[in-house]
């Protein structure tokens, strides 16, 4: 950068600091490798380490003998897709309103959007559940979706609002001056500008919903999403390595959208503010 290169160079860090940073990063990543290893363990009763033998049979078991996994996976995908769709519509509306104009209570709106993830999940969960029971709404696909959409809004809102704030207002004025009406301006100017932010926010919302367990325990009733299935296996294991196979599926299904969202917004750092 400037002449103070020796200060900014990556090699300038004291050894102790580098070791601590490296140790911290290893601490964050090594545990996930054990999930991978144990999926191949031939021991299904305990978590013996090192595993007594390695086998591929659990992938076959998960694929062929356990329809409960695939039912749970399908429900999770459906819920996450619907919650993401709702969150995109609601989050974009809120972001557009906050960006376009100053109105009374604008700060409170931001707080209201963040509240579902700022308060412990158990509060959102128990509040929704008692509301369902007060209004005698039976548990269904939609009771899960309502809970998920509520805490997914913030992710879309943050991503889209950050993009809006970097979108120059003169673009929109130019479009209007050239004779486009509001809808045309939205379709041809605003939408292409926020498209990647929408996609990134949507992907994160999908990952968030796909993984959610705390609120879901309260809003699902007898239905099993994939995280609920995993929780029940953690408490009462049947075939332990099968749980690892499912864990790998979950890692892949959530990592891909997260990496995708990162690459879509990497120039802008929208991602860091999104919180969870």
């Amino acid at each position, binding site marked *: 950068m400037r002449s103070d290169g020796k200060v900014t160079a990556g090699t300038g860090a004291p050894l102790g600091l580098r070791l601590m940073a490296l140790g911290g990063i290893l601490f964050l990543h090594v545990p996930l490798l054990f999930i991978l290893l144990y999926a191949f363990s031939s021991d299904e009763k305990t978590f013996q380490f090192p595993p007594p033998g390695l086998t591929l049979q659990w992938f076959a078991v998960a694929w062929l003998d356990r329809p409960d996994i695939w039912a749970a996976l399908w429900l999770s995908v459906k819920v996450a897709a619907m919650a993401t769709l709702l969150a995109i519509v609601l989050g974009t509306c809120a972001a557009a309103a906050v960006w376009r104009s100053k109105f009374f209570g604008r700060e409170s709106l931001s707080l209201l959007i963040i509240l579902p993830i700022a308060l*412990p999940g158990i509060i959102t969960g128990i509040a929704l559940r008692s*509301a369902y029971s007060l209004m005698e709404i039976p548990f269904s696909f939609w009771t899960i979706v*309502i809970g998920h959409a509520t805490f997914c809004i913030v992710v879309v809102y943050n991503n889209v609002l950050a993009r809006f704030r970097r979108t120059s207002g003169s673009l929109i004025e130019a479009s209007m001056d050239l004779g486009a009406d509001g809808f*045309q301006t939205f379709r041809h100017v605003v939408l292409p500008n926020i498209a990647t932010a929408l996609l990134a926010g949507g992907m994160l919302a999908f990952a968030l919903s796909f993984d959610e367990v705390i609120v879901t325990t309260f809003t699902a009733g007898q239905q099993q999403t994939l*995280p609920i299935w995993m929780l029940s296996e953690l408490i009462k294991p049947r075939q332990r390595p099968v749980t690892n196979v499912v864990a790998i599926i979950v890692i892949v299904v959530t990592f891909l959208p997260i990496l995708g969202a*990162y690459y879509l917004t990497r120039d802008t750092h929208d991602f860091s503010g999104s919180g969870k």
Partner: protein
Amino acid sequence: MTIAATLPAAAADGIGRRAARLLYRNGWLLLILLLAPPLLWLGVVYLGSLFALLLQSFYSVDGFTGMIVPEFTLSTYADLLTAANMDVVLRSAGMAAAVTILCALIGFPIAYYAARYARGRAKAAFYIAIMLPLWSSYLVKVYAWKLILAREGVVTWLAGQLHLTWLLDGILALPVVGGASLSSAYLGTATVFVYIWLPYMILPVQAALERVPRSLTEASADLGAKPSQTFRTVILPLAFPGVAAGSIFTFSLTLGDYIIPGIIGSSRPFIGQVVLQLQGTAGNVPLAAAFTVVPILIMAIYLTAAKRLGAFDAL
């Protein structure tokens, strides 16, 4: 240019065009249309549920029939203030405080390195290395630790290989934090909490450190401060709001969690587990509702304190 090209040559005054003109002339109308869906959703569905819950904490449960009596009473709050329940609250708050301090100690060096030394590709790699665990599946991460901390698992094996079994046994024999195995001890619970919430501490601290202008540290060096003095008197005070911001997440998330202490830890319950049990098997929704007020109150106090420390400017 492209916009003009894609416009229909002669835009007839159709309904769409007239609607657009109406919205353009009446900005408030568009604002209402934009605000209505999210406000209705969050205001009615979410806040409505929260208020209904709070309302129920002022009801009570009939001791004989087990039915909820919808009359205003403070007796549920009197039930809340028993010694056993206060134990649960203190245990949860104590764990949340310990986890927060550990996260700050472990997270700070990572954030410091990422903010002040990593450049270019290394910086991007660091960023992804922190983001991926943050967003990856919560249950998968808890499960990984169950494998590691189990009595027959990785830690026990590693201690045996290093001839450190005596050390592990010594740690497990400690009062309070110890237990039969790491997966049934407070120590194990705290480890998993720290692991899961650590990225929430790193990110705000890193952001705060990146905002420290380099000219300040240079000025400090020019004025004769040793690097350790600069760190203590310049960098640390400026990074502290970031630590406070991160601590909001680590504290709040630990306080309400009921899954980790249920899977890894002693059988002594935390707030979340008690709430779950009260509203589920015990069927005492009013007391469960009153119990949820406790973390809300603790967080309100915590947020007020954090605001004084400048945490919100660092978010």
